[in-house]
């Protein structure tokens, strides 16, 4: 008996000791990762954490690294491909060891960037050359850089849409619904595919933000207003999603959808439309080739809303690459980020929008250019506040849960009324906004 007591005591003491030690780290502040003047002098071995497991496995990353070594012969690049990137890196960031270069996980608060990452320079200076600097800028300093950007939009099968007699892009949600109905009645294709089970495709709908009003301050309005209010952008988006589902224009059983399968299905014309992003086009084209369908059938159109007759599409950065504040080789890490953004051709390889301001638009977006779609970059000054409100309200605008519920209500699997549901979201959002110090 006595033995047991002492043992429990020791355990407790050990446990308390251990719990006391956590939550430290990352106390150093304000380091810089400056670009080197002479590539030949930069040396060191760096580890790059990446979510692109696919291109690490097929050797594409290795090729980039080999190319990189032609300019920077003394830098050794190692890749650490992580499948469940967000969750795993979040845990690793409690230590000092999270690679030299990493993609900034969504969980890190924007204002905490200086605690985790070395600065890449001032926004004033970098924004002359690069897009998206606003998204990682804290107090005028930039902490991350995305190698590419993408615009959200509907991927659609041109052949099916033409068969249904719709050749012009719909300009209002109502026209869009009419087009989907025509597809349903005139073709065998599923008019719209939700990818409900894969979950994240539903969260892509949040990217509509900014496309409805064509306002670069759309993110600020998320932070300061009600996104589901009368003219809230997310209300327009969610209402359209609801109508699509409610009018039976989706696949028969959304709960067992399959993302990988949806690619060849859209290419072959079994699916007519899906809301994704320009980054997806290349994946669908590759799937089309594999399935023996015509890759040119895959088209891309903006959200059906027009301001003064003009469509807008937001351009958003992909994961931002940053240099760890604990990196021993910050120069080498910075060299990798610069080279990867400027010279690697990664953005072109992915048919994406280059981070370099003067680079031409990818061929995928040619129709956008022809039809005069305006590409806008949202001001992200309030991005951090939006994230905080989102967490506090537990709405999850970038999580799938509430849209899954919306789809369930729309198809009658759950009781509820769409207006009440969206109003409730708005109520939770605005209440949380009050508690979050902005």
């Amino acid at each position, binding site marked *: 008996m006595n033995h047991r007591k002492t043992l429990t005591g020791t355990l407790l003491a050990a446990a308390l000791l251990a719990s006391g030690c956590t*939550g430290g780290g990352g106390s150093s502040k304000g380091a810089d990762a400056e670009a080197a003047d002479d590539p030949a002098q930069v040396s060191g071995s760096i580890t790059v954490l990446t979510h692109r497991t696919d291109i690490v496995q097929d050797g594409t990353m290795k090729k980039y690294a080999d190319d990189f070594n032609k300019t920077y012969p003394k830098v050794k690049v190692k890749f650490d491909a992580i499948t469940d990137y967000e969750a795993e890196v979040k845990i690793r960031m409690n230590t000092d060891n999270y690679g030299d270069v990493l993609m900034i*996980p969504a969980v890190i608060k924007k204002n*905490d960037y200086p605690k985790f990452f070395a600065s890449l320079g001032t926004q004033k200076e970098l924004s002359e050359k690069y897009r998206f600097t606003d998204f990682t800028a804290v107090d005028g300093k930039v902490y991350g850089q995305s190698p590419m950007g993408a615009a959200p939009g509907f991927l659609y099968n041109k052949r099916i849409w033409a068969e249904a007699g719709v050749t012009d892009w719909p300009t209002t949600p109502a026209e869009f619904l009419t087009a989907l109905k025509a597809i349903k009645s005139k073709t065998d294709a599923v008019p719209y595919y939700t990818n409900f089970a894969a979950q994240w495709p539903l969260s892509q709908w949040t990217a509509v933000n900014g496309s409805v009003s064509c306002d670069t301050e759309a993110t600020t309005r998320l932070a300061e207003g009600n996104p589901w209010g009368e003219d809230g952008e997310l209300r327009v988006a969610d209402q359209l999603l609801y109508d699509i589902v409610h009018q039976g224009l989706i696949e028969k059983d959304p709960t067992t959808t399959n993302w990988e399968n949806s690619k060849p299905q859209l290419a072959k014309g079994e699916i007519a439309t899906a809301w994704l992003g320009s980054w997806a086009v290349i994946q669908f084209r590759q799937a089309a080739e594999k399935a023996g369908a015509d890759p040119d059938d895959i088209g891309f159109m903006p959200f059906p809303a027009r301001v003064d007759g003009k469509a807008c599409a937001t351009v958003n950065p992909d994961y931002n690459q940053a240099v760890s504040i604990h990196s021993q080789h910050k120069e080498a890490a910075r060299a990798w980020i610069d080279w990867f953004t400027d010279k690697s051709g990664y953005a072109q390889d992915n048919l994406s929008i280059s981070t370099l301001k003067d680079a031409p638009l990818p061929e995928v977006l040619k129709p956008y250019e022809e039809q005069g779609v305006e590409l806008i970059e949202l001001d992200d000054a309030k991005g951090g506040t939006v994230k905080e409100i989102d967490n506090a309200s537990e709405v999850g605008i970038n999580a799938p849960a509430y849209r899954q519920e919306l789809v369930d209500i729309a198809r009658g699997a759950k009781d509820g009324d769409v207006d009440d549901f969206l109003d409730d979201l708005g109520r939770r959002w605005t209440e949380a906004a009050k508690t979050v110090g902005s």
Partner: protein
Amino acid sequence: MPQARTTPPSHATEKAARPRAAAPRPPTPRRAPRGVRLWRGLTPWLFLAVPLALLITFTYVPVANMLAYSFTDWDGVSPELNYTGTDNYVEIFTRPELFRVFFVSAYYLAASAVQIVAALYFATVLSFNLRFRNVFKGILFFPYLINGVAIGFVFLYFFQDGGTLDSVLALFGHESDRAWLGTETSANVSLAGVSVWRYMGLNFVLFLGAIQSIPGELYEAAELDGANRWHQFRYIIAPGIRPVLSLSVILSISGSLSVFEIPYIMTGGATGTETFVIQTVKLAFQFNKTGLASAAAVVLLLIILAVTWLQRRLVPDDRVDLV
């Protein structure tokens, strides 16, 4: 559902296997010298050192950490965390919607009843001499060995529109046209079914082990007395495995309250299949409220402890005495 970590002791075995009178009494040894005594006292601890180290590192330290976090507003990554006292607990208990998800557990509770009855049935049948009984044992236990993630994916195909289940039903002339995961009831029933499929093997093996430790003479004697199979089950097997049975029930109930991987992988908690643990995971990893989520986990732990304690009070663990 039930996640057993321990194999239950079977009191029945000892009695049957070791007739006490037969063993010769060892001679009383002389008192060993001090060094030897010390060594002897230390030996069990040496053997225990590795498991204890693992247990402490991977169970008690994380639990202590979790307790500590539950009193803070930590977001899971920020270097700053503030002590907020019992705020998290107050929040949990003032938000009744957080407990609504326990209704989902009812589906799994019902499923565990089915699971235990089925496992008991198969264990009883397969404990008698039967052709291919080892093959059947293997088949029944096999699902428990498969990784839960794999099971989730397999069953997603299984329940797909026109998937395995629909094709099998079509073979029997039943053209099914339903979305198995489509509505709240059918989704939960389907998921609970997967759970039964997966964990029945474990219950089955526990029961089988207990049943086989019942001495064979008892059956022979019973048969001579004219007892049929049902009588043998009712008066020999059922009382003989009572401790294992009650353990299984406890595991099933705590398992039902903390269901996680199957619904998380298959539906992610959509369509009314969200359980308490999924909700906790969402709080911690989607909304970065690690402090609140830790408090929720502590509450779940306390609920499970309370339920188990209640069960032990209601059904005390009697010693089994068959002979």
